[in-house]
């Protein structure tokens, strides 16, 4: 598969999630909404290898992998809107997208993708030799026991699994390295699984390393763990507080700063040193958000691929136009009958 097709997958996903964002801002999606915006290269690089019979376990960021896996965008949008003719009859929702046809399952429980991929792979071994299972999760999930247990199980049962860690440095408002000991590579090898790293902003790099790992798995050579880095351009979820502060400080900062200062100065409690140490932590989370990759265009894998394709501007613009049409058509189709 060439860069054009990979770009198509990624750009389509980005466009799709732009549509989701619209629905969310209009209040048509009621609660939490986590996007894959920023991790498209990882998803495309892996999912583009999957064939019928392969299975996929995803975390709370389901829309990108489901779309790229071929799940109908209209039925997904209808699901997010809670319609009876949605992908899951409006019963599952964005953290619980499920497609039996694609053997694709989401879960909002951090780390649950590990056991799920192991079970999918076990069934593959028994019923569909040559097929595999992929698990997508974040680096924060690497401290969840059931995921660590699963990596070990995939190793000792020599299962056809590809564990894909989408490392964005963050678990919501926590910088994961501050609470993760050792090196992920050593951790994974210490659980008996082959470990590879790849640049999660570079779709062709991901596709290459994923391809090797998946070939091994199909050939019965056991599981691999692919560690990739990315940034989530929209933060943890839509309306993410830390990003709101930075994008609209005049409006958001006082809401936080006033009670914070009052509490900082409140009688009774820790020493000034303790209080300052606490204040430093709160501020660093905000500062690190300002300066972290989320704000920087060169961390956008879709733009990166686009730049690589600039030589043929005409084809590029045509492709973008097609994708926009495709998605806005899907959006319209999904919204039929909704009073705007």
């Amino acid at each position: 598969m060439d860069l054009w097709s990979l770009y198509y997958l990624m750009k389509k996903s980005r466009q799709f999630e732009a549509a989701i964002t619209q629905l969310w801002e209009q209040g048509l999606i009621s609660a939490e909404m986590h996007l894959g915006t920023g991790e498209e290269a990882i998803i495309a690089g892996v999912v583009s290898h999957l064939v019928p019979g392969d299975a996929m376990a995803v975390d709370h960021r389901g829309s990108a992998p489901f779309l790229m896996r071929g799940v109908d965008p209209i039925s997904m949008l209808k699901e997010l809107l809670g319609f009876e003719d949605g992908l899951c009859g409006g019963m599952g929702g964005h953290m619980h997208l499920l497609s039996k046809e694609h053997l694709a399952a989401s879960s909002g429980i951090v780390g649950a993708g590990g056991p799920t991929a192991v079970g999918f792979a076990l069934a593959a071994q028994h019923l569909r030799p040559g097929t595999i299972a992929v698990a997508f999760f974040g680096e924060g999930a690497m401290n969840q026991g059931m995921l660590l247990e699963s990596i070990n199980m995939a190793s000792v049962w020599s299962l056809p699994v590809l564990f894909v860690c989408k490392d964005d440095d963050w678990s919501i408002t926590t910088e994961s390295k501050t609470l993760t000991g050792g090196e992920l590579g050593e951790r994974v090898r210490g659980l008996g699984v082959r470990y590879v790293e790849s640049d999660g902003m570079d779709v062709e790099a991901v596709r290459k390393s994923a391809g090797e790992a998946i070939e091994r798995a199909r050939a019965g050579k056991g599981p691999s763990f692919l560690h990739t880095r990315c940034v989530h351009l929209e933060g943890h979820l839509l309306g993410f507080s830390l990003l709101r502060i930075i994008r609209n400080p005049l409006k958001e900062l006082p809401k936080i700063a006033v009670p914070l200062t009052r509490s900082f100065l409140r009688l009774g409690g820790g020493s000034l040193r303790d209080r300052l140490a606490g204040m430093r932590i709160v501020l660093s989370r905000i500062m690190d958000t300002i300066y972290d990759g989320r704000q920087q265009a060169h961390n956008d894998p879709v733009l990166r691929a686009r730049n690589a394709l600039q030589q043929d501007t005409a084809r590029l613009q045509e492709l973008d136009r097609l994708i926009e049409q495709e998605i806005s058509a899907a959006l319209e189709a999904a919204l039929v009958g909704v009073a705007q």
Partner: protein
Amino acid sequence: MKKMYFTEAIDDAIGQAMRNDHRVVLFGEDVPLLRRNLLVRFGPHRVMGTPISESAFLGAGVAAAMAGLRPIVELYMVDFIGVAMDALLNHAAKLETFSGGKWTAPLVVRAPCGGGYGDGGQHEQSLWGWLAHIPGLTVLVPSTPADAGSLMLAALEHDGPVIFLEHKLLSESFLEFLGSGGRRTVTYDIPETGVHGPVPKKWAALPLGKAALRREGGDLTLVSVGVGVHRALEAAKILESEGIKASVLDLRTVSPLDKTALYESVGKTGNLLVVDEDYEGFGLSGELAAVVMEAGIAFNFARVCTQSTIPYARSREDQILPNVERICTAAINLLH
């Protein structure tokens, strides 16, 4: 008529299912030795040992079921579900609803449960009412070898997740494995008709949610599952000698409940006495009271359950777990 031991019957029914359906696989800790008879018949691809990683292998069981297998996942004891509850609470139980009815997980979780042999409160829990609280789980608690085998078959034919609880006092081989086999000096109050009994030549699935009336009597209805059924039957005998005629209803399935059988019997006797080895509060006994009330049946209610953490000391344990004496006293108080 052919007779079998309780666990022997379960394994025999599993053997029949494995023979007829290649999708049935079996895994859990020490399963290769605990189920060695199945291992040497079906081989290591169908009978697998797992690391001590309950949350991974139970979760894997759910997904394997989603992807076409019919796994039986064994827990060493139901108490150990604590580390793996997420797989049942947030995944197995919710899949069918979340998928809009399009996807189910035909998984059987097999776990020894129950007390009465002195293993202490962290290894003798029942938890069937606790598990039944979660919509989407089927919970089975057989009390005889025949039911055990037939319900295991029913569990394997069911399209959703089933918790199959195997009471340790009925499991000859498990008690012997836990050490009783190493000496002759220890005995437990084991219900004979529960541990060994007649079984069908060929196993056929029992319908789920169908209770069995083990004994008919007009004065009150004793309702229970598992070993409790045998305690209730013993109590019923004694009560009879005191002129009290008791029905004994064996629910067999905790969830779904056989409300019809319950209404019918309590409707006749007007007195419901629940015998439940699971914890008393917020569980099976309360649910039975509520269900009969909702049916608008007038009745008196009492329960003999496990009211606290199970003590280690055998003597105290025998007091905490529902015993014949407590059942008789409760029955007499209920009627007078």
